[in-house]
């Protein structure tokens, strides 16, 4: 039971990071971006490339930090990956979404995002191959807290969880205390009115993509670190991330955070009572339950 709670928190923090970016894009640009999870793949793979590069060029950085499986090379690679993924999110917007936003309607954007997701996924497969990749081949053994009941924890998990929490606090402060944050929220509330008040809409949208892409990159790296990297990360994570977003309420950062943990915990706890074959369905049962009780999600607000 406690073990499943611990595991749920790890999965939850990855989903939360993905969901925050998605919820912001969905709120401000008002469309369900099904290609968002591909940004996690891009993040994971870009970090992999830089990680390998740094390990070769700077062998000193290849040493693990403490008992984590993370190395300084990977930390640096993650920073590069965040930037790269943020930029590619902006690029996707310029190439695809902005053009459709000007001509088409919301539904066209949704379809376009499906198409984009497929293109990105297959491009990654084409470049890196379909097989599994890992940042480090070494297996980091978990710390056993108790044998009976079995209770083990991996330091990677704790690190991922802490980093997620720190990021949340930073985002919260930015959104609630800075002019930049206010302008983003204003665009989310009413783009026209925000523009009237002197907010540069294009720039605000760009910022949203960069933040969303950056967080997705982190989620991708954490996923790669605790699981493995393959071109299907996007496909596998898109629905849980959506579930987290919807459960939390579209547009709510805290909702996305909580939603991620709820989905992660529920999928793990479900295994106590359900055979494991059914665990993929759990996020959707949660979506249904939440939508029935609170149609706008836990933290969402109704809007016209």
């Amino acid at each position: 039971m406690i073990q499943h709670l611990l595991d749920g928190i790890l999965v939850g923090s990855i989903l939360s990071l993905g969901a925050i970016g998605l919820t912001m894009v969905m709120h401000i640009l008002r469309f369900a971006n099904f290609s968002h999870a591909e940004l996690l793949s891009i993040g994971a793979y870009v970090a992999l490339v830089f990680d390998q590069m740094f390990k070769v060029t700077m062998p000193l950085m290849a040493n693990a930090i403490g008992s984590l499986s993370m190395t300084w090379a990977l930390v640096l690679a993650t920073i590069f990956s965040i930037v790269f993924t943020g930029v590619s999110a902006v690029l996707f917007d310029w190439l695809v979404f902005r053009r459709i936003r000007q001509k088409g309607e919301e539904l066209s954007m949704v379809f376009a995002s499906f198409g984009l997701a497929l293109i990105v996924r297959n491009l990654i497969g084409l470049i890196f191959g379909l097989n599994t990749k890992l940042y480090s081949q070494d297996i980091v053994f978990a710390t056993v807290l108790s044998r009976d009941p079995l209770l083990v924890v991996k330091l990677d998990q704790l690190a991922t969880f802490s980093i997620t929490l720190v990021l949340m606090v930073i985002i919260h402060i930015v959104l609630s205390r800075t002019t930049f944050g206010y302008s983003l929220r204003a665009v989310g509330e009413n783009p026209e009115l925000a523009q009237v008040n002197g907010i540069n809409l294009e720039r605000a949208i760009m910022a949203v993509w960069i933040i969303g892409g950056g967080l997705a990159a982190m989620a991708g790296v954490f996923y790669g670190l605790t699981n493995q990297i393959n071109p299907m990360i996007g496909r596998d994570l898109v629905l849980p991330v959506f579930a987290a977003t919807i459960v939390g309420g579209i547009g709510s950062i805290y909702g996305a955070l909580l939603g991620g943990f709820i989905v992660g915990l529920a999928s793990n706890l479900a295994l106590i009572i359900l055979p494991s074959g059914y665990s993929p369905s759990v996020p959707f049962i949660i979506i249904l339950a939440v939508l029935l009780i609170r149609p706008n999600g836990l933290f969402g607000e109704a809007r016209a």
Partner: protein
Amino acid sequence: MKKENGSFALKLCVAICLALFASNSVSQACTTKVGAVLPTSVDWGRPIAETAQFVVEQVNESGGVSGCKIEMILRDTQVDPKVGVDAAKALVDLDGVQLLLGAVSSGVSMPILTSVSVPSKVMQMSCCSSSTAFSKLAEDGKTKGLWYRTFATTGVQSAVGAKVAKDRGFKTVAILYKNDDWGQDLNRLITRDFGALGIKVTSAVAINDGQPSYKAEVTNALSGNPEALYLGLYPNEGTAAVREWLSLGGTQNMIMANSLKSEDFRENVGLQYLDNAFGTDTASPRVASADEFVKLYKNHFGKEPSGPGLANSYDATMIALLAMEAAGKGATGDQIASQVSRVTDPEGTPITADAAGFKAARTILAEGGNVMYQGATGNVRFDKNGDVSAPAVVWKFTDTGTKEIEYLSLTEVDEFIASMN
């Protein structure tokens, strides 16, 4: 003008067709048609069909079946159940065949069996379908004894997996299996086999592919504190699950299905953790008759029989035609099917898998004797469900690939499986 041209072409065509038909009926006084439904439009399907045709040529060379030449009418399935059923139906209804060879995929063979072969009482012999759904169908008596196949089922793999556990003295085993048809099938079989050997299955956990984490599943499997872990997984989720398993302090005693025979899996899990991991796989038989087939094939086709299912296709066709010979002239599908045991009788006179062997068999069968067919996949023997088993190997990862630890001949596999029941 145009119209005249058209009618001329038609007349010409009719004339040619009539001429062809006439010459056909003159030169071959007696022809027995057999049907083949194989995926000839895919690259790996064509050689399977060519191998079957090669057998037919040899049988005809030896004097045909019951004095008649065999004509194999080949129809493409396009690996599509609908196309396959149509083709089989046409063969049975229009050409009046009593024997269908095929199909390759279980998903195609199954509807042909249930909607064509069984209702029309036609014998069906597949070279390549491996699903245990057929065994289940046969156990329920729904194949009416008309179904045979020369491709081993997942049962061999599971039996050998259980044998490894027994040989290494494991008392408790946890199972992780892929949550698809194949994995569920394997899980069902291996659980039964472990049970038969008195090995306790502490938990059997389904692994869905593409999950954000397998920690919960692995924790569940770990909870019974098993001595060994059985893995019915593919490399992708296998890597993730096994790494998780090891990092949570699970045992390194592992038994793997052949699906994990993969470079990626070895590299990503790490050879240092795989020292006590044993894999199972089916193998090609190491008997003289299998080498003979390779020689024969090379002589005829000028290349190695390296594609999938070639040896199986050879044996499927040969055994079906032998059974036809045993059943005598004008035999119906169920009569032919009932003769299969006479030509694959382990007590019978051994015969080779070529024209000479067929000739020899003809004499023995005519005298009421039984023969033991020694074919490309060894001494083929069907069980009551029309299934065959296959030789098996136990393997282990090395730094360059895999190495064989143990080879179990067809007889050893058969005996082991029999000892469990």
